[in-house]
């Protein structure tokens, strides 16, 4: 179970995002909906340990992770979290296989690669360079990289952001199929995909963006 408490993220500019407490239960899929800039991706990044919250805490099965060292957070991310990035974060010049094998640098076993690629329908592209793939195929590679290590938690930031609705829906369906039994938190701006997930969280009611001047005025 993932639980957030009093999360606040301050940015360099005079803005901050404050979040209501959220609980993500094990084995369920969640979709975070909300307008652009409402803090969806920031929340995912904080959950993944990529950025540190300015205030508040994040608990994974009761263990507070957000205040751990970057090294511990990196370790946790590589072992427990599969993160699917909006812009794929793939090495364009490398093959699909190598992009997944990059995980081996941290000792992650990638023996499930063929199985995952097969489930996503891109096993035949294994030896292809990422730059030779279509947008949909790249997104599937990003998903495969997240799933190949059999993580407990999957975070997906706009997994269909670069795809049209039809392809996007298919990708999400495939993703949910593989993620069955795992905790999945996805961010999307396309509310047509929301019914595919177990729970929908409207971030407009959870996160509040302020400028510092507004905070001072309210105080």
């Amino acid at each position, binding site marked *: 179970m993932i639980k957030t408490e009093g999360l606040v993220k301050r940015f360099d500019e005079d803005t901050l995002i404050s979040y209501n407490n959220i609980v993500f239960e094990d084995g369920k899929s969640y979709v975070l909906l909300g307008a652009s800039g409402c803090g969806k991706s920031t929340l995912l*990044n904080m959950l993944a340990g*990529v*950025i540190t919250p300015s205030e508040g805490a994040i608990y994974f099965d009761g263990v507070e992770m957000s205040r751990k060292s*970057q*090294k511990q957070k*990196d*370790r946790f*991310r*590589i*072992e427990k*979290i599969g*993160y699917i*990035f909006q812009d794929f*974060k*793939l*090495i364009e*010049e*490398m093959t699909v296989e*190598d992009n997944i*094998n*990059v*995980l*081996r*640098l*941290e000792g992650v076993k990638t023996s499930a690669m063929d199985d995952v690629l097969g489930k996503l329908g891109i096993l035949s592209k294994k030896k292809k360079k990422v730059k030779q793939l279509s947008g949909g195929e790249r997104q599937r590679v990003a998903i495969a*990289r997240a799933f190949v290590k059999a993580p407990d938690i999957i975070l997906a930031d706009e997994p269909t952001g670069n795809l049209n609705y039809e392809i996007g829906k298919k990708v999400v369906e495939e993703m949910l199929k593989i993620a069955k039994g795992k905790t999945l938190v996805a961010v999307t701006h396309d509310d047509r995909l929301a019914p595919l997930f177990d729970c929908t969280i409207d971030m407009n009611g959870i996160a509040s963006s302020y400028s510092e001047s507004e905070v001072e005025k309210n105080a």
Partner: protein
Amino acid sequence: MLKFALKNMLTKKVKMILIILSIVISASVAILAYNVAEQVNDGLVNTTSTYDTIVGPAGSSTQLAMNTLFFTDKPPGTISYEYVEKLESDDRVNVVIPFAMGDSYNSSKIVGTKPAFLDGKPLKDGEMFGDVYEAVVGSSVARKYGLSIGDELVTSHGLSENGEKHTANPLKLVGILEETNTAYDNAVFTDIETVWEVHEHHEDEGHDEGHDEHEDGSSEDADAPSSHTFEGEDEEHEEHEEHAEEGTVCAILLKCRTLAYAEEIKKEFASDSNILTITPAEVIREIISNVDLSRKIVYLLCIIILIMNVFVISTVTILNMYDSQKDIALMRLIGIGTGKVNILFLIQNAVIGLISTAISFGVSRLVLSLMSDFVASMGIVLDASKIYPFEWLIMAVVFVISVLPTLICTLHISRKDIIRN
């Protein structure tokens, strides 16, 4: 890790090749410059002769020393063989070796002397020359022209390759010297009488006619047919005066019983205006002091090149690293720790450093081999297999400066806020 590093490098082939090339160019120049300077110096020092005195015709002492010790330059002239006989009967002298030069085999000089001239130079094959027209060649000559025992060497008149061929009097190869990495490797040795005989035949064949014509001036007419026309005839005539004709030698090499006797002999010859006596060690020391200045300039250049290396290699490496920021950020995002990222790029740059250093070394050796012929004409044989400790230091520096900036860069980049990368 290494496999992934290599794969990652292969995705940037062109960039990697350019980086390696930039390192190779600067590093090989530094290695080469140092090695050549050292080998030239060593070549001079090591040839500081086992002879304590050289007797020759009046003229340049440097020319006499370079000609007799390194077989370079033209002989300064000739002196009568009577001097040899006189010195041979002198109790103060242990060894008297006549030295004559004037002809060549392709580009290699032919030295007319006595077998004792090659004392301490073991034969790899065959035996020492004994009879007239027998010859022993240096290892480079044998290798260069694919010579083996029993081969006939058709020599050319004069020191130019284009000289008239002595086809009627070829030399018979009876021995090949072991490699010495000295000027001896590039020369042909025969008995002094061979030199005389060849020239006697040469004169008989009509070369002296040309001389006569010159003397009476008739051959000044450009249309007048020459007895033997060949390229560089004027040069040849000039050289002709330096040939050791029968009863003459170009120099006499002496080993005296004591240095005091050597000095005595030197003083005795001082009164003879036709003779020059030199102490090779002194002349070579003078040459070395001049070369030493050049060596210091080369060292200075080496240091400048190395400093430039540091800048070039560091800049190239740093630019490469900053170019890899995206990859580093990507790896960090998916959870690869800073340590692993640092090791990955360290391995990559170490591989680049190793490849570059190895190629630089190879290039320097290749150029050394190619330069060998050119430098051989100056009497110094460059040994491509000779490595000086300082060269290892240059290579180590090149390796370190191709790796060190990586470490600093990756540490800097990978410690930045992940999301900001």
